């Protein structure tokens, strides 16, 4: 059994795409309430790792336990786990044929069987929290990128998840919209949400993360506190990456 204070427990995780070895023996434990930032060069496997946690990608070796449930390709009630694990995507993936409010109440009503009025009340509360309560009746296409990403965060929160996964949430945004999304993520972190973020925003990592995990070529190279990660990286690959990211 997993230790009760582990929200996510990954051990010896392996994943192949054909002959390409995308994840190599990855071990990662995330405690309840912990905020973990995963970074690394592109193609390092960080997105694959985070997408294995809710089984958008299926691993082919090792074990993953999320909130005490072991999951793999054969898990029948994967959707029970997914209810409790929110995910925010790089390209928002809001449903373009529904208003923002409809986006937020769809899954609570269908999956959690919440009544429409309750779902709307919860959704509005989260939309207000991300400062787009006044946009609730608009369609995603009518919103700016930053607004869309905040709506996507509100949609995930409306399911009242216990863990939030962020997959490069600011990479597709125009530079001036990055901070409004990061602000929302910071305030979410302050409320004690368990968070796993794949991001290149090193400022965010320094400010919010309890741990920073650095991945390269499918392996976890470095795993430690932000202070040790930024100020004295132990691995030379980490140092090289940091020098490239922080140079600009």
């Amino acid at each position, binding site marked *: 059994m997993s230790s009760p204070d582990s929200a996510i427990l990954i051990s010896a995780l392996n994943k192949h795409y054909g002959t390409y070895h995308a994840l190599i023996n990855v071990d990662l434990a995330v405690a309840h309430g912990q905020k973990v930032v995963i970074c690394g060069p592109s193609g390092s496997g960080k997105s694959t790792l985070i997408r294995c946690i809710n089984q*958008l990608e299926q691993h082919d070796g090792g074990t993953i336990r999320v909130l005490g449930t072991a999951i793999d390709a054969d898990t029948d009630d994967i959707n029970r786990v997914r209810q409790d694990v929110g*995910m925010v995507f790089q390209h928002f993936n*809001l449903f373009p*044929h529904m208003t923002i409010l409809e986006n937020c109440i*769809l*899954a609570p009503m269908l999956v959690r069987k919440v009544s429409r009025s309750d779902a709307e009340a919860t959704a509005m509360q989260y939309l207000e929290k991300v400062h787009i309560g006044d946009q609730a009746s608009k369609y995603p296409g009518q919103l700016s990128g930053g607004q869309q990403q905040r709506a996507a965060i509100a949609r995930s929160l409306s399911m009242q998840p216990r863990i939030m996964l962020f997959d490069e949430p600011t990479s597709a945004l125009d530079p001036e919209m990055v901070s409004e999304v990061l602000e929302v993520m910071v305030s979410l972190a302050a409320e004690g949400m368990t968070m796993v973020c794949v991001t290149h925003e090193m400022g965010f990592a320094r400010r919010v993360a309890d741990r920073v995990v650095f991945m390269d070529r499918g392996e976890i190279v470095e795993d430690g506190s932000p202070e040790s990660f930024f100020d004295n990286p132990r691995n030379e690959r980490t140092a090289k990456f940091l020098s490239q990211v922080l140079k600009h």
Partner: protein
Amino acid sequence: MSELNLSLPLAPTVARVASRRVIKRLLSVLLSAACLSMLIWVAWLCFEWAFVNATVSSDARQAECVAGGGACWSVIVNRWRLIFFGLYPFEEHWRSVAACSIIVVTVILSCVPALWTATRLGILWLVGFTGFYILMRGGLFGLSLIREEQWGGLSLTLFIFSASVLIGMPLAIVLALLRDTKLPWISKSTGLIIDTIRSLPLLSILFAFAVVLPFMLPDMMVGEKLYRVIVAYALYFAAYQAEIIRGGLQGVPKGQDEAAKAMGMSYRHRMAYVLLPQAFRTSLPATINQFVVAFMETSLVVVVGFFDLLASGNAAYRTAEWTFAFVEVYAFIAAIYFIFSFGLSQYGAYLERRMGLGKR
């Protein structure tokens, strides 16, 4: 480097280009004028034939019409009831008119975006179709019973069209989903069925169902010929429409499905609320086009012995006194088909333009 070839006579070239342009321009103006005058001339000839020199009196026959020198609409005046109603009893023709109007209203209502949800469209078509059927067949509410063998003309055409679409659409969705699943055997065997139906001529499928089936199956499994034909149409429509829906599904970005999955939505919910609505939206122009094709293809029932719009048109001029007036009859029938399919396809083109604008 500075020795650029400045000896080239620049000015004459400019003049030559200019004069060539003038000639080109002149030629194109001449071509335009020629085409335009030909167009106007042909249009005038048609107009003159159809209206100016036309004969419309119900008493006129070949002699009077030839003397008029234009179209002989007398044939339509005399035979329009046959063309529209076929063998439907004369005093009950109003029922056929009402039934056809219901289907036309149903089709028009289906074009209203506010009704574009599966339930609303489903209810609309079920209500429209039931209304049509009760009016046509009777045997209820004091209407006399008129069996399907006596139906004909436009109402038969509309009956076959709406019934086959009503069965074909749900079937198409099922086929598309079965072909789109990740389970290889289900996907492949469904694909084989769809591809086989699509590779066969519609006429041969109609022939097999209408004519051949009674020789082949035990009598209790055969059923009425009209319904066998409708099943054949529905299958053919579904095979084509399934591929359109599948194309739409493949056009939905992968992230949409992932976002729905990430919130724990089941396959059924993801399809019904996230993927299919978007697939239908993107494939709407193709779907409307398929409806137009299906409507026009109902004319093939004439081959297996039904008295639809086209067959009753054939009958209208194939009597001794009207045999000369085939152009008028075909023009009239063509106009009826044209109104339906041109209207629908223009609407499809309008939607496509609007969607194209929306993307930007």
